[in-house]
């Protein structure tokens, strides 16, 4: 993968970042200005924007770094000698950055799965005071074993 391809992909990320950061900041502003107790203001789903921005952070940072270094190489001849002709390090950097985002998504997914496993579930059959099995619906409807009055 050559530098032009990397740069092109990064530019897409950069535009994505530019498109998402402003609505996020506007959303935060709207939230801050809304009076307490009046309910949350309607803003574009913040998690979606935050996720897009996360991708934008990676790509945007990547393109800025790439462009800055290669621009520097044009001006300072010594820097040119440091740069790989095929941009291998930058591919590595990009993979690293994407992997970082990947680990975050993995961690968040793991937390969701863990919370599902650890959640206290309503038992299929609860036990009444006499040890007899009762259905949850008996409890909800004020059945004999729920201790709630009938009717």
């Amino acid at each position, binding site marked *: 993968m050559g530098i032009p391809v990397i740069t092109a992909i990064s530019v897409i990320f950069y535009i994505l970042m530019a498109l998402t950061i402003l609505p996020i900041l506007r959303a*935060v502003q709207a939230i801050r200005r809304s009076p307490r107790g009046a309910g949350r203001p309607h803003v574009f789903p913040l998690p979606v924007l935050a996720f897009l921005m996360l991708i934008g952070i990676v790509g945007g*940072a990547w393109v800025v*770094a790439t462009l800055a270094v290669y621009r520097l190489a044009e001006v300072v001849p010594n820097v040119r000698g*440091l740069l790989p002709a095929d941009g291998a390090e930058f591919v590595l950097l990009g993979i*690293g950055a994407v992997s970082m985002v990947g680990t*975050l998504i993995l*961690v968040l997914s793991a937390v969701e799965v863990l*919370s599902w496993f650890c959640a206290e579930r309503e038992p299929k059959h609860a036990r009444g005071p006499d040890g007899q099995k009762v259905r949850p619906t008996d409890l909800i409807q004020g059945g004999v074993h729920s201790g709630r009055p009938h009717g």
Partner: protein
Amino acid sequence: MDNPNLGGEPGSLSPGITVLIPAYNEAESISDTVNSLLAQTVQPAAIIVVDDCSTDGTAEVARAAGATVVRPPKNTGSKAGAQNFALPLVETVWTMAIDADTTLAFDAVEKLMVALDEKEVAAASGFVVPRYVRTVWERGRYVEYLFAFSFLKPVQDFFGKPLIASGCFSAYRTDALRALGGWSNRTMTEDIDLTWRFYFAGWQVRFVPDAVSYPIEPHDFKFMRKQLRRWSHGFVQNVRLHWRRVLAVPTLRMIVAVAAWDAMVASLALVVLLPLMIVLFSAPILMVAYVADLPVVLAPILLGAIRRRETARALASIPGFLVLRAVNAFFLLEAIWSELIVGRPLRLYEKGH
């Protein structure tokens, strides 16, 4: 619970707010703190300084400034201990905790109280800005706070789950605070512990960006090291202690997961992986990764700075932020290693300034 007998009947509290200031050898800064409280647009019903057996005349200075001073029979060993010592003395509906080196904007208490009007809210905390921004450490902290309080906290607050009601400046519903047993000293960061316990008990916590406080931050590495160690170990200790209950709180678990990821994976990348790659591949150019996220991180930082008319100061402080970020990453990894892997938890509470 550390102190089950914290006194006070829920119905017997009078309106108003009592300020608790734990202090150990704070003679230099305590009068500024008390004076800033006395100059508030909403006056506290009482200002209680807990002189935790200081040896520098803190009590005399605080008393001269106009505060009520109480003194435990011996040093309590932690901020939580000092605060709990004074909690039974609170007779008002609200209790505020503020550090002895922290001053407030003249309307900070008033602004904070607005959030506490909501019945389901048990705690509220405000915006924090370092009072002095001179050394590289103070500058780093200044930018770190701008980022956290201009961007991260408002987003967390939007979802109704600020990660922490900062211990240096927060207000609490007194009966809710007492019902939880006050502050706990089982971890190094009593504010995280308390905030999460409020969530577990069904209470809400708010972040109020307009209520501004100005603490004195560590000015050199010696003090910064102590503070970072305490904060890092405290976070890991709280995650370890509460992880099961955190999993049951939908948004909180996401926010804690992101913070834990940042503490572990991002720190690992910054302190271990990147230097390794630079050496192994003989590619110093990879050092750009250390600043690669700056364009995005700078956006909320600069917006926060522009709003405060401190753009030049923020820009000049960016190098400090980069240094502090790397040092912070190191201490987070050290805390994870010590607390979770080799089982050497931090137990000694050391002041960070």
